[in-house]
């Protein structure tokens, strides 16, 4: 996990005081966690409830991301959960913040993280396609 560039982007987000947890996830699956794999302790008591609610939200994201659903959020007790959807996918960057946090400032950095992760994903996809092409050349030869 430590060498995963997406995990490193999440690590950067986790250093901000009011980001209590963040991850790249989809319905029923957390794909990438910060490399320390630790959320801030205040989230722990409510994590199970947040996780369940997240899965329901991912149902909506799955249904509407193809037609431009970009962001979603919900509030559960004293926490807000922000979803920054990766365009045309069922995946999102998820961040949990305190309900009274200065959300605007955090949103700027969450969006920067989403853009950075998108770049990494595109690069990984490109490398994957190139390696597939190379494999095809070897097979043909």
């Amino acid at each position, binding site marked *: 996990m430590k060498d995963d560039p997406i995990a490193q982007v999440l690590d950067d987000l986790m*250093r*901000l005081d009011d980001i209590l947890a963040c991850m790249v996830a989809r319905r029923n699956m957390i794909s990438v966690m910060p490399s320390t794999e630790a959320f801030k302790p205040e989230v722990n008591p409510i994590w199970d409830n947040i996780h369940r609610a997240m899965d329901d939200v991912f149902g909506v994201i799955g249904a509407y991301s193809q037609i431009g659903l970009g962001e979603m959020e919900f509030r559960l007790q004293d926490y807000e959960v922000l979803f920054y959807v990766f365009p045309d996918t069922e995946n999102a960057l998820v961040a949990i913040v305190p309900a009274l946090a*200065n959300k605007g*400032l955090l949103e*700027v*950095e*969450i*969006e*920067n993280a989403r853009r950075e992760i998108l770049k990494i994903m595109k690069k990984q996809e490109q490398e994957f396609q190139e390696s597939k092409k190379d494999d095809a050349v070897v097979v043909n030869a």
Partner: protein
Amino acid sequence: MRESEVEAAIGMSRKWDAWEAGREVAETAIQQLKEPPSFFLLFSTIHYERYGGFQEFLDGVWDVLPVGTPLIGGTVAGFMNNYGCYSRGASALAVSYPSMDVAIGVGKNTKRNPYRAARQCAAMIQQTLKKSPYQNKFLLNFISGPVMPSIPGVGQKKYIRSGFVSKFATQVLGLSQATVQKGLGREDEIFEETSQQLPDYQMILGTSMDDYKGMRNYQFYNDKILKNAVVNLGLATNLDFNVCTTHGMKETDLRFKITKLGANNHAICKINDKPAVPELLKLLDWPEGFLTEETMLHTILYYPISLKRRGRQVPVVAPLIMKDYIFVPCIIDDGEVSILTVSGKDLINAVKENLDFFKQIQPEFGLCSTCMTILQTLGDKTNMIQEEIHKFFKDKAFLLFYSAGEGTFSSAKDITYANMSFNTAIFGNIKK
């Protein structure tokens, strides 16, 4: 010929370690210049305080920056440049131009004695630039912003409901301003005094902040870290430039009369001869008890008040409410005022309107100060503003920083001080 001699570059770092970030922000700017910079403007978010400290940060900068380069700046809530919009990191504007004289100045104890600090700082600029052969004069007036005093038993709050605590807190506010220099930034007073000291300068005002919490802020002056200071950058040049303020706030038909002011004209105590807060709620048709620490951010910030100061309109938001008193960030006069309203779209239109003012200028570089409440309000949609500004500057350098009190001054337009405003100083050449 003149255009080709102007070199302007944006430095940028997203590193966490203070020394490394300082080094990188200077290096990324300097490596784009062929000549040493004539000045270096440096802004950073508050985060480096916990990742090595600001002295380390400045040491990193000076590890790269040529000795003797005039440097000012400070901590801000966020910044925007050619690369994007950020609420963490550091950015710099480095400009090299031979037909430009540069001066920097500093004044201390701004919260205790703002007029003295303003005069000290202006005198340093005047002294250095008085013999300059260049007629076009510019000043960046960058001032320590507000620091909320922590009230015993209450902490740092924006809304205090208790009458007893409010009375006590009002006294604490005045006392802490004079003794420990915690309280309002008094940037309006400093800006007013500076414009009187240097009337032939066009100016842009910005304030130093932390991450919107209003707990501390720092100013940079060469290799020194300061608190409660004003730092100035003065330029005399043959470049064309202008300054402009726009805000996008619209008047509503909700008008009222301020009939009693308090706290040295920083608090609205009575509206229409009645206690200010209940009367304001009645005017806005908001129920009693609607305003709380939590709802303030999402309600009252969208209803700024168009106040008056020496005949000028001063649109501001109320950052602090104590029982029946509405505190405002600047000195105001009493009389008839109106409630304003603003939307996200209005804010973005204000940026377009502002840039439209400069359509005769072929830009070489630009500096902007904007209210941090806009950053807080728009969040990641702030990128829409970045795209507008980037479209205007194309490959030319621009740096915008987020303040808690901003404005512009020119002898033609007088002082424009406003919250939720967008302020620009754009340098270049008038299109032929």
